[in-house]
């Protein structure tokens, strides 16, 4: 857990105009350490520098200042790509290929032997729920389906480290849940995930630690539980107490402290939706 998968040192990116003059400071002195085996979330509003950070770590952009190391090698080292999976913000693939062909293509780029490629492609197509559409051209895919095939290609090499940029964008709640389950399974197998999102629920559900970026600056970082816990309030969960018991508890608590709120816990909308769909499928 202590081994470092990603380390950035004052990583800065300034976009320049045609004349070489600074136009936008997209990322400003980012210092991060992401440990192996953890799910790390990069949070921030649009234009906060999340995607720029990912592109710098992948060698698609070069830093203006600072540096970064990914799996022990400088960012952009071609040999490191063998152990990396990447799902970009939007899924742009060869529109004339079908799911099997695109996975075969990417598998080939990793030097995976044909037999293994075919087996792995089949597994990933099933995992991402695209078995019925595997012969359809990607140009005919919906946005959600394109995200699924994007995730499949990111996993074709069984990577040690995976970069997911807005993995659930355009997906229905069932698809979102499936992607989150895949990410959690990935963690169980000791792999590292860097997840970029502006969907807070996604990050909260799966991430161990998060960093919040705003206008290119890192403004907060820490474990999700630590950041979300309200330390001066304690919550009790009691199963169906009688009115009398409740009244006595209130009296005791009011003597010692101020009771802020007593109410019934609520499901999240996602839980309600998934349960309702599951019930409907059963019937």
């Amino acid at each position, binding site marked *: 857990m202590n081994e470092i998968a990603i380390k950035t040192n004052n990583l800065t990116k300034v976009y320049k105009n045609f004349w070489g003059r600074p136009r936008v400071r997209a990322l400003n002195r980012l210092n991060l350490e992401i440990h192996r085996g953890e799910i790390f979330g990069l949070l921030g509003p649009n234009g906060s520098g999340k995607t720029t950070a990912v*592109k710098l770590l992948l060698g*698609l952009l070069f830093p203006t200042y600072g540096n970064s190391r990914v799996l022990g090698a400088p960012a952009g080292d071609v*040999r490191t790509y*063998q152990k990396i999976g*990447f799902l*970009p913000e939007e899924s*742009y693939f060869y529109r004339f290929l079908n799911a099997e062909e695109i996975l075969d293509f*990417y598998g*080939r780029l990793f*030097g995976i032997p044909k037999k293994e490629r075919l087996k792995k492609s089949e597994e990933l197509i099933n995992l991402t729920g695209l078995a019925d559409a595997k012969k359809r051209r990607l140009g005919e895919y919906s946005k959600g389906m394109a995200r699924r095939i994007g995730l499949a290609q990111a996993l074709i090499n069984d990577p040690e480290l995976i970069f997911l940029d807005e993995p659930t964008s355009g997906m229905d709640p069932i698809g979102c849940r499936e992607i989150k389950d895949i990410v959690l399974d990935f963690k169980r197998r000791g792999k590292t995930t860097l997840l970029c999102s502006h969907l807070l629920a996604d990050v909260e559900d799966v991430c161990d630690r998060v960093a919040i970026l705003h206008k290119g600056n890192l403004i907060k970082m820490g474990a999700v539980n630590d950041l979300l816990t309200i330390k001066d309030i304690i919550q009790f969960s009691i199963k169906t107490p009688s009115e009398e018991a409740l009244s006595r508890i209130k009296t005791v608590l009011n003597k010692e402290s101020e009771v802020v709120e007593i109410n019934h816990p609520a499901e999240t909308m996602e839980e309600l939706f998934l349960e309702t769909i599951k019930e409907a499928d059963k019937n």
Partner: protein
Amino acid sequence: MRIIGIAKYTFKEASRKKIFFVVGLFFLILMVCSQFMEVISPEDRIKLMVRLSIAGMTLFGLISAVFLAATSLPKEVENKQIYTTMTKPLSRWGFLLGKAMGVISVIALLLFIMAGLCMIFAYFVEGSIGLNFFKAVMMLFFKLTLMVFITVMGTTFLSFSVSAILSLFIFFVGHMTELLEDIVKLIALRGEEIPGLWERMVRASIELFARAFPDFRVFSASDFVINQIAIPFLYMRNAFFYALIYILISFAIASLVFKHRQFT
């Protein structure tokens, strides 16, 4: 294996654009037209066919080579497919080489189809086009391969349209080197009388064009075929190495530029 993977899918993409069908159809129309042109003897018909087919192959081959090579990389960048491809364990020069190889394999197949159609027509007019014709096609292939690498080089730092125009410009200038050399000589003669700065500048510019751009006359073989003179092996070998030198220079520049390219 990885470079071949890129080449294979570049070929696949081009073939799904129905390029073989379109070029084959136009070439077929050209061959049919040649049958209706008036000639004195059957030998003349064969000569006409060969002349037309080599011209047709050059034209269609050039358009296909420049169009496919010019769209290949910029389209990948524009459609952002490059994000996923460039984060795979494949060097940037390997990616460029794969792209060029894919386009070259399309050109090779196109030339094969057109040469095949020409042979079929020659069979029906009871003539033979002989080995010399295939040597000429091979020379054309060297020329078009060079054009693919020049165009790919352009796309590493220019847009699709500008690199296509630049490639065509190089192609036409490359066919006019004799004319350029004559102009240089003329200016030199005039310069002796009035050695002005302007003359020297113009002369230097034209000389630069004439020397820096490849001389495409090196690949010209249609005169050999029409006059039924066997294309010497030495001539072909020199053309091959001439193309190779320019290919290596173009590819080295392309790799260097592409290595430093960022994908925003």
